[in-house]
């Protein structure tokens, strides 16, 4: 591929980089026990939550940052971050969307997320989170009629403390890793979803995260519980303004599936990736996502389209405990310019006849580094368990890199594990062939990449498959001269 083509590949713009001018309440920079107490008090939390946070904070102090990932960045000063930021209004509970600050509504509209229900995407309920607080949740009442709880996590702590006590931290313990501990100590918002027995959630649920304030960390926490025979499909989207400094995003997502429950969790991640020319700024996306298939025949499916962030460090995983439970991971990770991604999954097979499927598509362009890291573990008890992994990398240009670190750990003789991997490069011949048929190089690259990713895109909810396709096109826009 020509140099010219590569150079233009590194010149696309990020349309979500604006900052909303809105007054915000921001906690002083730094992390200590007083800040945690302040967060808890601001959120009017019950004592058990403060105890949860402080326990995690004390443990965090004993931990060090993980260094095994294939990414490089200067040390993070955890005392230089605001751990709490919230738009000043509204101080009180909102009765309806009409009371939301119109500036916020405009922000979300600009991001393509209309919050007024009449303009809503048909059949999708949205929880919009701006910095540390949830600003609006749509279709709440309609969902409640079906017994489905969909609300900000802080509201769940207040209204459903028993569920929170039972499940929060039950999948990702505060002792799990450095960022999970940090999140447990300072998390400020997130979504809570609870689908009771036998209920098929009548619409797609979606949370939209937006970081707005400079030097703010975003630490959201999502908890989804699906009871017996229940099912839900959930999607998260993320954007942030352009800042020269790096911002830390350390989220935790926990999923719990009981007998025959089915959870589908999709992510379209497009955090600001830093300056395309210098690599300055951008989000550090250090996220812990895990699902527990507790019940028999339960199923958890992760689908992610990761296109943003300066650094992505995330491994949405499944712990397959229930007999015959199923875990799936479908991933497209695109890195361009100076982005670095170290992402993949863990499939921990514990129950009999558990099954997992991993389909990972990594696309590297510019000077980026893209790593797949995965663990498939067949425990002694996982009799007859089965895994299949397909791990493909695509390189665009010759200044990027792709790596794969698959770990397979089999502790019983009756399980089967399959791993297939390919590396491809978009060739000049392919582009010439398409061009000779009258297709511009941009459209040709988009078609080739969409073809490469289609096994993952077909797992996305229909409304978002189109969006993801366009997003990839946008990320590689002007990629050719």
């Amino acid at each position, binding site marked *: 591929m*020509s140099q010219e083509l590569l150079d233009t590949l590194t010149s696309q713009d990020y349309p979500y980089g604006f900052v909303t001018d809105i007054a915000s309440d921001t906690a002083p920079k730094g992390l200590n026990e007083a800040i945690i107490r302040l967060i808890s008090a601001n959120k009017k939390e019950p004592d058990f939550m403060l105890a949860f946070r402080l326990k995690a904070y004390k443990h965090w102090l004993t931990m060090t940052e993980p260094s095994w990932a294939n990414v490089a960045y200067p040390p993070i000063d955890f005392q230089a971050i605001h751990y709490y930021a919230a738009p000043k209004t509204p101080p009180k509970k909102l009765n309806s969307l009409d009371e939301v600050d119109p500036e916020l509504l405009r922000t979300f509209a600009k991001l393509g997320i209309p919050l007024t229900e009449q303009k809503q995407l048909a059949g999708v309920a949205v929880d919009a989170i701006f910095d540390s607080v949830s600003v609006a949740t749509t279709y709440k009442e309609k969902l409640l009629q079906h017994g489905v709880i969909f609300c900000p996590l802080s509201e769940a702590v207040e209204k459903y403390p028993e569920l929170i006590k039972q499940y929060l931290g039950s999948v990702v313990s505060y002792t799990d890793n450095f960022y999970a501990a940090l999140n447990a100590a300072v998390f400020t918002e997130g979504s809570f979803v609870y689908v009771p027995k036998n209920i098929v959630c009548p619409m797609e649920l979606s949370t939209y995260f937006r970081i707005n304030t400079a030097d703010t960390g975003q630490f959201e926490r999502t908890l989804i519980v699906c009871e017996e025979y229940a099912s839900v499909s959930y999607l998260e989207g993320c954007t942030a303004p352009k800042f020269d400094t790096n911002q830390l995003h350390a989220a935790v997502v926990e999923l719990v599936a009981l007998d025959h429950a089915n959870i589908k969790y999709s992510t379209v991640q497009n955090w600001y990736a830093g300056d395309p020319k210098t690599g300055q700024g951008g989000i550090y996306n250090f996220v812990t996502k895990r699902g527990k298939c507790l019940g028999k025949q339960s199923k958890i499916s992760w689908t992610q389209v990761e296109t943003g962030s300066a650094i992505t460090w995330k491994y949405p995983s499944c712990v397959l405990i229930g007999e015959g439970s199923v875990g799936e991971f479908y991933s497209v990770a695109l890195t361009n310019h100076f982005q670095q991604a170290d992402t993949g999954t863990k499939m921990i097979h514990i129950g009999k006849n558990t099954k997992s499927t991993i389909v990972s598509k990594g696309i590297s362009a510019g000077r980026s580094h893209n790593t797949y890291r995965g663990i498939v573990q067949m425990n002694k008890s996982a009799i007859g368990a089965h895994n299949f992994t397909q791990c493909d990398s695509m390189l665009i240009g010759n200044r990027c890199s792709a790596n794969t670190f698959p770990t397979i750990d089999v502790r019983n003789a009756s399980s089967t594990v399959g791993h297939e991997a390919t590396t*491809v490069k978009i*060739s*000049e*011949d*392919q582009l*010439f*062939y*398409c*061009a*000779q*048929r*009258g*297709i*511009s*190089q941009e*459209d040709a690259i988009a*078609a*080739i990449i*969409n*073809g*490469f990713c*289609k096994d993952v895109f077909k797992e996305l909810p229909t409304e978002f498959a189109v969006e993801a396709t366009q997003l990839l096109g946008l990320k590689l826009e002007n990629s050719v001269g």
Partner: protein
Amino acid sequence: MLEIKTLCAKINETDILKGLSLTVKPGEIHAIMGPNGSGKSTLSKVVCGHPSYEITGGDVTIDGESILEDAPDVRAQKGLFMAFQYPVEIPGVHNGNFLRMIYNAKRKATGLDELDPLEFETFLQEKLKMVEMDDLFLERAVNHGFSGGEKKRNEILQMLVLEPRFVFLDETDSGLDIDALRIVSKAVNQYKNTQTGFVVITHYQRLLSHIVPDVVHVMVDGQLVKTGDKSLALELEEKGYDWLLT
């Protein structure tokens, strides 16, 4: 009218085309024959704008206007088509969608509305019959895992879809069995019209007994050294190229 005027081109410091001239009028079929390494395949790639070649002299015009500054996709929009000697595989890209994409790109360039999948399906059916392909063919990835004959038929199918004004058939007969050769030739003959000029690049007379040329050229060392009518092809078949090499 397509005019190639004393065209010179090189790749990696090696001169391949050395002042080649050729004029193709609508409705004409030109055959170019010649020994291996004479630059036959380079000619079609250079005219279509392959980025590996550098033009060092001469010009290529369509209706009097130079196309050398145009990107390959723009040249295609101006009606140039090349059936590749080695059609490129594009894994993951659905052949049916690809055909619709190239067709709609052409429609867009000429200011027409794009066809939706159903409308295109209707349009495509008749073309599919011409190359004796069925719908299953459309469900596969572009050229991916196709046999040699299938790839060449897919090239001709694309030609039928795009309805180009100037067509280069670059050794389309190589790697074809007798049936595929018959199908490809029949489709070309069906498409052949007064509006389209063909340049048929081949080693063998056998293709030219199916697609009958108006003019036959012999290419040696980057130049056309002899031009005649279709009987020249028969003469070459009999005598080889040696008598033309000096």
